[in-house]
């Protein structure tokens, strides 16, 4: 298992991948992707119990579902750098005939992706179904999911959140990326959601908070604690406080880079702030 420094090096390389991917096609969603770089690296390199290769059924291993599919750049980069497909394929992001569609899909057969996402609010239901299938199969591995905070404005989430505790789905850990931003502005500006922690608790979930969602040690510690909370008859929610655009100073603390690519000059600045570690694709 990689040590903390190796995880940090990989995170920086993932940030470079994200910036270069969206810059090349002048589209995509860098802000949320950068904010979740540490989380994805921690999950795929340390937290999740994964098998070699990829099988859709995922029996005998932990599963991950990305519900807020627009942060596909970080998903693709970490999947590639975790061995699911060649890193060179990141070059094809959002291009015609690519397996790396704008939003993740199973349709083109990209290893590592088990559901299409992008139309928001659907991932938790899918993750719950996969978790219940694991129970039926006597498979004691866990199901993880990631959701945006703005995404919780979609009502289907609350159907799923209500169901999960009612049916005691305690082999799921759903993480909410609390970056406080969405396309039209801050979540406080667009639609204030009050205390997400209180809401999940009221719906019968165990809730843990990771205050430093861009600190790899904090994520490793927090997710390890979350794992301990599984199997106790309740679903587990992790509130991950991140900064959208983290690691590129002019992209941080704003919603402006939610769905906008950097130009040549901005790319150069962003890359300079994240010097190459493991080698660009």
């Amino acid at each position: 298992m990689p040590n903390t420094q190796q995880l940090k090096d990989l995170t920086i390389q993932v940030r470079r991948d994200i910036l270069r991917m969206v810059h090349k096609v002048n589209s995509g969603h860098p802000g949320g992707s950068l904010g979740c770089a540490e989380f994805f690296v921690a999950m795929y390199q340390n937290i999740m119990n994964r098998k070699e290769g990829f099988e859709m059924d995922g029996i005998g291993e932990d599963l991950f579902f990305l519900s807020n599919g627009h942060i596909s750049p970080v998903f693709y980069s970490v999947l590639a750098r975790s061995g699911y497909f060649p890193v060179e394929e990141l070059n094809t992001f959002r291009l015609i005939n690519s397996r790396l569609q704008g939003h993740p899909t199973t349709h083109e057969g990209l290893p590592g992706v088990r559901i299409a996402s992008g139309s928001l609010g659907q991932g938790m239901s899918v993750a719950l179904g996969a978790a219940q299938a694991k129970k039926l199969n006597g498979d004691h591995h866990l199901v993880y999911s990631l959701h945006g905070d703005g995404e919780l404005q979609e009502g289907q989430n609350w159907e799923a959140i209500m169901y999960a505790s009612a049916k005691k789905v305690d082999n799921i850990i759903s993480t909410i990326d609390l970056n406080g931003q969405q396309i039209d502005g801050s979540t406080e500006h667009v639609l204030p959601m009050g205390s997400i922690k209180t809401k999940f608790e009221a719906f019968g979930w165990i809730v843990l908070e990771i205050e430093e969602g861009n600190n790899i040690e904090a994520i490793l510690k927090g997710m390890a604690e979350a794992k301990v909370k599984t199997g106790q008859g309740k679903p587990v929610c992790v509130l991950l406080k991140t900064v959208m655009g983290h690691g590129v100073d002019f992209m941080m603390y704003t919603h402006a880079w939610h769905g906008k690519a950097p130009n040549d000059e901005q790319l150069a600045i962003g890359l300079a702030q994240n010097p190459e570690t493991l080698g660009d694709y």
Partner: protein
Amino acid sequence: MKTYTYTEKKDTRSGFGAGLAELGRTNPNVVALCADLIGSLKMEKFIEENPERFFQIGIAEANMMGIAAGLTIGGKIPFTGTFANFSTGRVYDQIRQSIAYSGKNVKICASHAGLTLGEDGATHQILEDIGLMKMLPGMTVINTCDYNQTKAATIAIADYKGPVYLRFGRPAVPVFTPSDQILEIGKAIRLTEGTDVTLVATGHLVWEALEASKVLFEKGISAEVINIHTIKPLDEKAILESIAKTGCIVTAEEHNIFGGLGESVARVLALHKPTPQEFVGTNDTFGESGTPAQLMDKYGLNAVSIVSKAEYVIKRK
């Protein structure tokens, strides 16, 4: 002329329930989900015999479709059960993204389709579901005509890998197809042979087409009745072979003529053999409250209407 009779009437949804119960005994991967309509969908037997393989979702159809998609990821074959309206229009995007685009092996089983839902009225009587579902890439669309065919279809779709929309209804209707049939997806069934007009019908209108063929026979008109249980993929060969003999066609369905079986048939004819066609279906309208028989009569979805359209389409040859 080959004639069909029946000794009893049964609801097609009970055929679904019986098929699901049989699958519960024969296929350990089959699981069932319901959004608070167990009794309406006749799922009790499956649940009684396989409680661990049943998921009561509550009144949350969007969540149900997502959970069904997720269950496939553990190798399960989920059958979702609710009314046709809540199986399609209410959850179109969930089906589109999480099931159809994701290529998930989910069987969307929809009862109370069309006007014959009856007294509950237009809020519950969907007449657009065939169109909605046939437009989804990769979705198979089946609409069965009686108890036995619905049971056979339920069993058949478990062995087919891919998303399926199975549509059936509420009222008791004549049981006239064999109890031992094996349904072949995409294969039309020619019920009667004829030379003057082809009647292509699906769902509850199949029996009406048979009734119409008897009336037409007495009038000296030889009608060929085709039971199209699978609307997508459509058995184009069966349709083209029939119209090669008859030269005209009437399609009949408990659905809006916009987007239904009739338009699928018209496409086949336009591509291969332009042929006079008349449509029996609802005409760009919502339904309303009433008994099933009253509604089918008011909206022209019965044998009388099929006879009238058949006589007219023959004149257009």
